[in-house]
């Protein structure tokens, strides 16, 4: 997330949010009320505390035990693993360079060290990627997020307050193709995040450094608090230092001292694996099913099979790759390749896996469903486009959804939409089914798709 120019007014944002939230179901299935009415036939009403207590003890003693257990587990989850076990770093008692008002906090486990005011105590941040220290004259939270290759999630918080839960996980991804000069490289601006006042918050943004990394410092006063964010990336991981101080006690010197004391603790030299571009196209070879093609490296990490629901065995000739990134299909494979048998049988996996027999392309076209039926009759919905191409040297067909209008039907990324390519090779049906939204939202570049299709070849 970055700050910078504002592209829409408050009113425009309001209109978009209203329109977006207007979308979606407005009709509740009758079964909800019917089921509830059936259920309350055996549910007593709670008339007062003693009655409720008696009812609970007499009718469901195990539920109480389960509830207590769930509470204990919940507390464990909320507090996080650090209080349950594992190494707990402590302030380094060695002399500090500030004349005794600071302690040097060091945690190799978390991968950094910095000076913390001696009067500040560490408190539970509530987040696995963040540590927090608090004192009467301010507090600091350090969030060191995940690699951009693992989603780049990092916790960022807003001013504290009663019942406030203003922390969110911001995700930071990478370009496809990967851009090593810009992806996961600082500074990382929090200016947009700080823009949380009615009207506009005056944010002072400046450039700084964090242990040599180019960082952004964003500062704003909200209410009686001065907020300071210093944010950047290190080793493609977002890192955010967030100070909150009472305005009347805030001063730049202390923050500067803490910031300049910050050091990343990287793994010892030699233990790092050489960087491998996850988006690079590499050759995937499936000798068993007799084909190969170029594939983004990170898709191969998600290679898998789907089970036949009847036998619980992997479907022969079928491989899935990666997860789709479009919503609705984000849990679905980005690509499914199905290689059939010489008798013309092949498996199509969409909502479920189903076996078909096809002797020609027309029959294959009847087996695949490019747009789920419920989305085909909607005004401004997707329509199907078909055409011919060559795949692996064979005459092939493609089917894909297209939107005739940018003001498209509100299906929130309709699931079960595919870019299908199919052919027949040696009597064996061959089907490539790309998750449409992976392509449409450029989780891979259009050029990659072309390269992948052009590279497809049969090994026999």
């Amino acid at each position, binding site marked *: 997330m970055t700050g910078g120019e504002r592209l829409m007014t408050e009113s425009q944002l309001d209109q978009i949010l209203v329109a977006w*939230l207007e979308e979606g179901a407005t009709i509740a299935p009758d079964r909800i009320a019917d089921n509830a009415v059936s259920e309350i036939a055996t549910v007593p009403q*709670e008339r007062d505390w003693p009655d409720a207590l008696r009812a609970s003890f007499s009718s469901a003693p195990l539920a109480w035990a389960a509830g207590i257990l769930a509470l204990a587990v919940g507390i464990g989850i909320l507090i996080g693993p650090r209080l349950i076990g594992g190494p707990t770093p402590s302030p380094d008692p060695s002399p500090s360079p500030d004349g005794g008002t600071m302690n040097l906090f060091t945690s190799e486990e978390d991968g950094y060290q910095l000076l913390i005011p001696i009067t500040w105590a560490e408190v539970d941040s509530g987040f696995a990627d963040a540590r927090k220290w608090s004192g009467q004259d301010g507090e600091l939270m350090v969030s060191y997020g995940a690699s951009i290759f693992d989603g780049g999630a990092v916790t960022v918080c807003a001013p504290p307050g009663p019942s406030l839960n203003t922390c969110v*996980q911001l995700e930071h991804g990478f370009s496809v193709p990967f851009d090593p000069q810009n992806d996961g490289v600082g500074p990382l601006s929090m200016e*947009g995040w700080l823009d949380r006042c009615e009207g506009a918050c005056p944010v002072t943004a400046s450039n700084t450094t964090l242990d040599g990394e180019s960082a952004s410092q964003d500062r704003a006063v909200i209410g009686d608090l001065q907020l300071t964010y210093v944010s950047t990336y290190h080793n493609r991981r977002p890192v955010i230092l967030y100070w909150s101080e009472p305005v009347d006690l805030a001063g730049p010197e202390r923050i500067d001292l803490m910031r300049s004391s910050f050091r990343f603790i990287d793994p010892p030299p030699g233990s790092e694996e050489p960087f491998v571009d996850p988006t690079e196209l590499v050759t995937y070879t499936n000798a068993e099913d007799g084909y190969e093609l170029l594939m983004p490296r990170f898709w191969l990490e998600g290679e898998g099979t789907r089970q036949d629901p009847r036998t619980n065995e992997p479907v022969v000739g079928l491989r899935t790759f990666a997860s789709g990134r479009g*919503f609705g299909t984000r849990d679905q494979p980005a690509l499914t390749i199905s290689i059939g048998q010489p008798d013309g049988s092949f498996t199509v996996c969409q909502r479920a896996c189903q076996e078909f027999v096809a002797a020609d392309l027309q029959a294959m076209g009847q087996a695949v469903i490019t747009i789920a039926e419920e989305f085909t009759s909607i005004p401004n919905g997707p329509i199907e486009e078909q055409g011919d191409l060559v795949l692996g040297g064979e005459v092939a067909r493609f089917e894909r959804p297209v939107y005739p209008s*940018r*003001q*498209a039907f509100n299906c929130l*990324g309709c699931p079960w939409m595919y870019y299908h390519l199919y052919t027949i090779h040696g009597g064996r049906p061959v089907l490539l089914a790309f998750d449409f939204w992976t392509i449409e939202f450029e989780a891979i570049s259009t050029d990659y798709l072309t390269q992948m299709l052009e590279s497809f070849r049969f090994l026999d």
Partner: protein
Amino acid sequence: VERRLVELAQHGDRGAFSEIAHVMSPRLFPVAQRILRDYHRAEDATQQTLVQIWRELPKLSDAEKFDAWAYRILVNTCYAEARKSRRRPDDLRLLETDSSTGDSAVSVADRDALERAFDRLSAEQRAVLVLQYYLDLGHPQIADILGVPMGTVKSRASAGRQALRAALEADARVGVVGRTA
């Protein structure tokens, strides 16, 4: 919901509750679906809410406040539902729609950006935005429903709006638009 029905149900009249359930279900379900962004979990949350309403109705001191009270139970149920495991393997991100809403004012790309950003908000922030923009409630009413200070409502709304704005603007900056293939 008619006060008479509420009072009858408070005294254990299951017939009255049945009428309440059929009136409230269409009101509660769309709100749950928008907070949870999941059709089936919204169904579960709405049904749980109705049962909870039945169970706790005798504790409702003022039948006139039934609607706000019911929404509060719904939102709390959605919080609990949201904290459960993220999703079942076969769950969808589909909002089933009415065909009458075909002329959307929101582009596909905006919708994707909103959906992703909304997914990252806390359930508490989502609830505030849904109550504000879908039910068109003011901050005082939302504070009343949620049982939190109005400042909390404002903060949640502001943080939520900011995250959604950032998502939309980020998409606009990189030029991700709803292409026609």
